[in-house]
């Protein structure tokens, strides 16, 4: 059996999809992976979106957003995860990794929210003000719906970053699909590599699936009033202005 066949055999072996003596099974790992991701994103959204809305609406501190988004891209997630878990201890490994995940998810969410709000036509905001809407209502009822596509773009970038880092977090004892890569590496040999590659395929499949789902949601969420070809051009134009680049690289 060549190596590709071995990987395929591992992926299609029903034993690996149930609890066996050395592993709780692939479905459990998938659920773990998604839970760690969801938890971190929840915290990150709660922190990043209000700040992004405020900075975007008032226009103050925009340079801060760009600076943070750009410099956090440089932070090596393996180092962050190792350091936090070693310092906080294995008993708190989940908490430690979540802190790292939130830290990595905030910059793209912040950048996406900020870019989304900035992209709102100032005429629309003026009209809303002219109608007598309060500032708070303008943000939530006018700017936010228009900004939603770009904000979701930020969420997509953040989600990919988190899914990727969760894969790595298996190095410091966490569960999730990364376990197959780390354990396979530890087992060694061809058998070990087949497990690593199987895990890698699952991780890639998970990431792609989540990305497609979010992309679909992003398209659905465009406000009906904006659902014309002008939206895609506007979104593109904001995207290529280097300073306001919300397309933060993921890993």
């Amino acid at each position, binding site marked *: 059996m060549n190596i590709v066949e071995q990987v395929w055999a591992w992926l299609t072996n029903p034993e690996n999809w149930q609890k066996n003596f*050395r592993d709780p099974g692939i479905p459990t790992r998938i659920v773990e992976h998604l839970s760690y991701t969801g938890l971190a994103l929840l915290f990150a959204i709660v922190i990043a979106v209000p700040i992004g809305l405020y900075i975007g609406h008032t226009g103050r501190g925009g340079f801060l957003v760009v600076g943070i988004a750009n410099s956090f891209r440089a932070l090596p997630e393996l180092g962050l995860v190792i350091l936090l878990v*070693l310092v906080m201890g*294995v008993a708190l490994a989940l908490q430690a990794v979540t802190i790292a995940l939130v830290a990595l998810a905030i910059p793209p969410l912040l950048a996406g929210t900020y870019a989304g709000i900035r992209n709102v036509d100032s005429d629309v905001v003026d009209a809303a003000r002219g109608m007598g809407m309060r500032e708070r209502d303008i943000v939530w009822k006018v700017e936010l719906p228009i900004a939603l596509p770009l904000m979701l773009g930020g969420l997509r970038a953040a989600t990919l970053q988190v899914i990727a880092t969760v894969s790595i977090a*298996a190095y410091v*004892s966490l569960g999730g699909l990364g376990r197959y890569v*780390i354990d396979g590496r530890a087992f060694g040999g061809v058998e*070990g590599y087949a497990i690593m590659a199987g895990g890698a395929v699952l991780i890639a499949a998970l990431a792609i699936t989540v990305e497609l789902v979010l992309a679909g949601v992003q398209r659905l969420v465009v406000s009906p009033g904006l659902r014309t070809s002008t939206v895609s051009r506007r979104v593109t134009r904001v995207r290529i202005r280097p300073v306001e680049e919300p397309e933060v690289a993921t890993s």
Partner: protein
Amino acid sequence: MKIRIFAGVATALVAALTMTACGGSSDPLSNTPAQQPTGSGPVGKPDKIVIGSANFPESTLLAEIYAAGLAKKGITVEKKLNIGNRETYMPGMTDGSLDLLPEYTGVLLQYLNKSAPETAPDEVYEALKKTLPASLIVLDKSSAEDKDAIVVTKETADKWSLKSIEDLKAHAGEAIFGGPPEIANRPDGLPGFKKNYGLEFKEFKPLDAGGPLTINALKTNAVQAADVFTTDPAITVNNFVVLEDPKNNFAAQNVVPLINASKASDEVKQVLNAISAKLDTKTLIELNGKLSAPDKPDASKVAADWLASAGIS
């Protein structure tokens, strides 16, 4: 302006190419022509010995000790340390890109013959000598041993009256076991615990190979029992209890130099055998303790200091 673009890109290109040239990582498994084993007959002093090590501190330490000893004898030594696990470095030994590395009798035998039944030190050593490929030999084994062991904290040992692994059977169902990921798969790991002692733990937590995660997990009771190596200074520092292994689940693991037969000249053998004779388990624990000291000295320094104090010429 086109010239500016060209100049800019050319500079970047030159910079990038320089970086690749300078920083080219040394691949220890690159295709160098295999050494022709000269078989029987005296081996002349080798012009160079390439010493490798696995990717953990004790292996690097032992390799540094070998290197320092050989260098003292005037033999040219090249070090390729921290290569990786056995699957990664063994091909280097067989294809000749590596000449020497420190090994452990039990795991090496297991690697070559998965179903090897021997567990006692001499039997393992003899079986190993017979199982090695033709181009490789092992020299004298040391009394220094570094085995896996099931280790618990003193509190746990007192609470459950634990002295040997057999005593753990009654409590395994409520205990979480921690260790390196491969212990779930290795014959002397979880499968061995079940077969030899009827142990089935509540849960297995994959941590690291006797590293800070495992020690921390044991200390904080995140796991109740763990796989720790017997030469780990953390055992004495933290007052851990090493459970006895009466059924010999863990085979003997004497430190032994694995060397390319064509490089095993008389001088080489003399130095390495002297080192093996002087090394014992207590010394290994001590040296590992020095590596873990707050100032984190280099393995080469700890090795050189020990060699000097051990009086090996």
